[in-house]
């Protein structure tokens, strides 16, 4: 018994050293060389899926299923988009771990590599695209309507597409707080004490990060300098206006978070329940700081159902996918194309911010995002969380 434990420990050490050397769910370089060679040398299997939507759909039908991840039902109306996909093409589209974070998605791909239920299409925050690329997870595949997607919403090498984006908005429960704030400056007023909430922590949640950047834009900062945003929230906390309860659906529904800062597309899904409760909910894009954020969709390499995965990506950027996003209050990538086709009717645009707001949206570059990330990681704790 005495000698057994050291033996097992030694064995474990050996195993751990071997396995940790071979991979990481992150950016270590050991995985990169072989995978980038794989994607550039061998022809991607998806090229044989077809060049028209019908060809792809036929091959996909044979595969029968596409594994999705991290798509909550009430997020940008993904429930509706998935339902329309399943109905139109007759393919199963199960969503695993809908609450998965971007990091969780990459972990899942790594854990289930080569298994039949590996996630096949990712929906990740922009800051994770590089890491996913380095790890060799992103297939280079351009959907059929590639040319109609704006430059800022796609990766040139075809590794990702930003199928939808939203704007950071102030959602107010007007029943509890009749004086609806309309701008970042408004939120500092004393009547909103203990009511303003961001969705998560900016070091972890995309919507919270967006709130800080948007606040920076409204207070003299820019994508290159988001310190004013951090200072803004530090002040908000000092004033006592910032509440730190998480913006969960239950908290919104109970009225615990009267003013929530979140993506526009996170509220339409909750509307029926809010109406039933008798709450008057108003979602307003702040007039002084407009920040648009997108999520990147990519087909995963070595997918068990490659054609179905490509079909799903095409569906997201198609007209049906776009209309699905619109219903959820998100702006589809091909908004301009749909506008030209006359598909943006008033009913469809009901959940959207105004056309001027949409025109004013711009996205930060990868370097700007990285810089902002570093600043928040360093300063949010001491300046806001600790106060």
């Amino acid at each position, binding site marked *: 018994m005495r000698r057994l434990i050291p033996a097992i420990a030694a064995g474990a050490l050996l195993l751990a050293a071997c396995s940790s050397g071979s991979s990481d769910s992150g950016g270590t370089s050991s995985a990169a060389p072989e995978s980038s060679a794989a994607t550039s040398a061998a022809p991607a299997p998806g090229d044989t899926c077809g060049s028209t939507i019908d060809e792809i759909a036929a091959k996909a039908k044979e595969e029968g299923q596409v594994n999705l991840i991290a798509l909550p039902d009430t997020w940008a109306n993904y429930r509706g988009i998935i339902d329309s996909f399943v109905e139109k093409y007759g393919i199963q589209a199960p969503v695993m771990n809908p609450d998965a974070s971007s990091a969780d998605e990459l972990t899942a791909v790594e854990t289930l590599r080569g298994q039949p239920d590996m996630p096949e299409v990712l929906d990740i925050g922009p800051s994770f695209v*590089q*890491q996913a690329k380095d790890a060799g997870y992103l297939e280079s595949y351009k959907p059929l309507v590639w040319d109609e997607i704006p430059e800022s919403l796609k990766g040139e090498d075809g590794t990702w597409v930003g199928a939808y984006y939203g704007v950071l908005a102030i959602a107010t429960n007007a029943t509890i707080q009749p004086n609806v704030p309309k701008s970042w400056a408004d939120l500092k007023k004393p009547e909103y004490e203990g009511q303003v909430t961001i969705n998560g922590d900016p070091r972890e949640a995309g919507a919270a990060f967006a709130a800080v950047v948007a606040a920076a834009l409204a207070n003299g900062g820019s994508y290159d300098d988001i310190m004013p945003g951090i200072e803004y929230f530090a002040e908000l906390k000092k004033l006592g206006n910032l509440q730190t309860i998480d913006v*969960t659906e239950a908290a919104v529904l*109970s009225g615990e978070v009267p003013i929530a800062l979140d993506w526009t597309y996170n509220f339409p899904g909750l509307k029926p329940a809010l109406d039933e409760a008798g709450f008057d909910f108003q979602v307003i894009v702040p007039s002084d700081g407009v920040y648009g954020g997108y999520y990147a969709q990519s087909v995963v390499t070595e997918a068990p159902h490659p054609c179905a995965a490509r079909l799903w990506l095409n569906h997201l950027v198609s007209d049906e996918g776009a209309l699905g996003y619109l219903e959820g209050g998100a702006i589809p990538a091909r908004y301009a194309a749909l506008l030209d086709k006359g598909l943006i009717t008033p009913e469809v645009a009901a959940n959207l911010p105004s056309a001027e707001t949409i025109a004013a949206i711009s996205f930060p570059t990868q370097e700007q995002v990285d810089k902002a990330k570093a600043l*928040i990681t360093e300063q949010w704790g001491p300046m806001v969380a600790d106060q």
Partner: protein
Amino acid sequence: MRRRFDTATLAVALPFLAFVGLFLFVPTIGLAIKALTPGGSFGFTSLQRALEGSYRTAFVNSIALAVTSAVIGGVIGLLLALSLRSMQRPRWLRSTTDSWSAVASQLGGIPLAFAFIAAIGTQGIITKMLGLVGVDITESGFSLSEFWGLVVVYLYFQIPLMFLVMMPAVGGLRQTWAEAASIMGASPSRYWRSVGLPLLLPSFLGGLLLLFVNSFAAYATAYVLNPGAQIVPLLVRFLLQGNVITGEQDLAYAIILWTITLLLASLLFIAVLQRRTARWSST
């Protein structure tokens, strides 16, 4: 006796050791290696960074939260075990508490946090009821998102856990001893001071350790009440499972390594205390 470590012993111990080796040691050693090799080469920079600035605050906060909820929860749990032990009636009370404790000790995350929000949050039903009588909870500065709010919510699973830990020990206190003590003229408090509590102390200390570790690891509940709370499990989550920060896995593993070290230190501390207080236990 030494020669008894034969194949039979090995056969018995092997499944457990293999299991623990594969599912616990390998990942732990793996992460220790990653913590000690930041950016691919051996070094202590990650370990150093893990103790600076926000991370140091997080450790302090987590320890404070863990100790507070462990001690308060521990004492109340012990009192609960003692109270129920001597009660024969009502008969349903024992089994109800036993079964409810098993479930309550595992509660956490949104249901638990929201139960408290629904009760004593700013829009809580109790808050409203108290408001009708003129008592304003929010004025007092109490907030579920702050330290004491977290402690109160953590107690919901700490107390049952301690109760479950103490039950076997409390049950081992023979009623006959208490009777013998009183026959010999000892007051109840004398009995407790000299017999009861010393006998319970080792298990109590072990339970405290369990509660301490449990609270240190709990994050789902804290996340709902305050996603930005400066505590260790949340910071690790930011680094390993978030939507914003990338490329900081080594730092996260360094934080975990420090947490493991802290645990082992606490364990040794408690083990020493236990040995010194175990006077009449069956070893």
